[in-house]
């Protein structure tokens, strides 16, 4: 297995943007070190030969947990909207979005 490129400060800055985190330059530097050490640990694990083991899809040894298709009561709208920062026309009011209408 080839070594992944080391984590750069640019990678951390990009992840911060995706996660809507405002990081200072000092924080970016600090987290770059911390994240690199976590990824290093993952790389150690990836180096092991696990080809004989079954993939763990989920920590619980369960699958096919299903419920019947039966309608249950929804919440009261007034109660729901009372928790919203802003409301208009019985809907959640949010800042301008650039994107599709759907």
């Amino acid at each position, binding site marked *: 297995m080839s070594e992944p490129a080391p984590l750069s400060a640019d990678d951390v800055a990009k992840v911060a943007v995706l996660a809507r985190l405002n990081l200072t330059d000092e924080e970016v530097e600090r987290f770059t070190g911390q994240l690199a050490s976590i990824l290093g640990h993952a790389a150690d694990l990836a180096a092991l030969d696990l080809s004989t083991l079954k993939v763990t899809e989920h920590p619980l040894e369960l699958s096919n947990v299903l419920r*019947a298709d039966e309608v*249950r009561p929804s*919440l009261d709208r007034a109660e729901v909207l009372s928790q919203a920062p802003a409301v208009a026309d*019985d809907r959640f009011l*949010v*800042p*301008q979005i650039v994107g*599709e209408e759907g």
Partner: protein
Amino acid sequence: MAELPDDWEMVVGLEVHTELATSTKLFCGCSNAFGGEPNTNVCPVCLGLPGSLPVLNEKAVELAIRIGLALHCEIAPSVFARKNYFYPDQPKDYQISQYDKPLNGIGHLDLPDGTRVVVERAHMEEDTGKTTHLGGTGRIHGADESIVDYNRAGVPLVEIVSGPDIRSAEQARLYAAELRAILIATGASDGRMEEGSMRVDANVSVRRGPDAPFGTRCEIKNLNSLRSVQRAIDHEALRQVMLLEAGETVTQETRHWDEDAGRTQTLRSKEEAYDYRYFPEPDLVPLAPSDEQIDAIRASLPPMPAERRRTLLGLLGDSVTEAHADQISSVVDQDLDRFVTAAAAAGVGAPLALARVANELAGALGDGGELEEGTMVVLLEMEEAGEVSATQAKAVLADLVAAGGGDPRAVAKAKGFEQMDAGALDAVLDAVIAENADAWQRYVEGDDKLAGFFTGKVMAATKGQADGKAVNASLRQRRG
């Protein structure tokens, strides 16, 4: 249909989202009914409130497998994943979807024109809420604020992704139409594009000839009808060719189809690349349908549209015209072919049954209402036996559908559509001929066009009660 210039070829793949016809949402017991008052079908799960946990709807799984089997997909153990993005149409800031382990793997769809399109996957996911933009000009880019209704958030979807196998806008329309008919046949969806039950996105690129590498693609959204699918793809492919011919490049982006303006325009202006950081959904365990379950669902699938078209073609025998072929496609697409097969089984001529179902019945049902197959069969028998004329049969049908059923003979009687006996018709004919002696003379001497004139007069005198075929026969008989 637009033709691309020179040796240009378009390459198209379609992503079709279909809502599943369940009673409840994918991960909670809120109603999956279209058109409710805003934010009335919401709960802690679909609002993403802290501490809530999703539980998978077994009916949605069954319907998703029905779609997979109808598209010849490999059904596989699957895992749900979080697709992360910040956009208020999902209150959780992620959408639960499937990523590297979809329920339905590779399959295919055969089109009526004989071509085959690969289906790469058909995975389960939840729908988003509905955003409406306010303020400014009311148009997308001018909006100051948006409002969100989460009734649709969490509604079960299957996304069907085709391979880049489609080579014309017409073929794309055919694919969407055939897929829609299959979704309806499986019972997984009502296929209503105008209500958003089925939504189509198209990935379009162009290249110089079939051996050239794929070009840069654009994704076209907002294709709300089969007509839009075809128009938008034709337009977009031509736009890309013109750019490239002018020495410019195509930018990979999402574009919005404006049906009124007949063009696509840039939708997302943000440079930020898509980076959804998928990871396995920790709140859901894997979904692994058993072979027994898959076999049971396969056994319960009804005949698919292609087979049903073949059945109708068989009923028509050697007398199939192009009009018949169109009618057959139309009745199968609308799930009305059962009326034709029921009528044929009762001995009614297939061409008559097909015509009445494709035109009058489809039209009447389109206005709302319903009808049992047996009722339609009786009415067709009455028309074929001459008990009612074609015009009268149509009027009776409209009443029956509007009332949701009834006895065709009773409706015909109530409307005064009882067949005139031969004596009464003779008397009317006598009178009409006497009043139009000159015309009659010309008709007897061979002016066949006047048959219509006399039929019209008889119809007017009997207020449409006479059977046109009987009148025609009488006219010919009297002329000798």
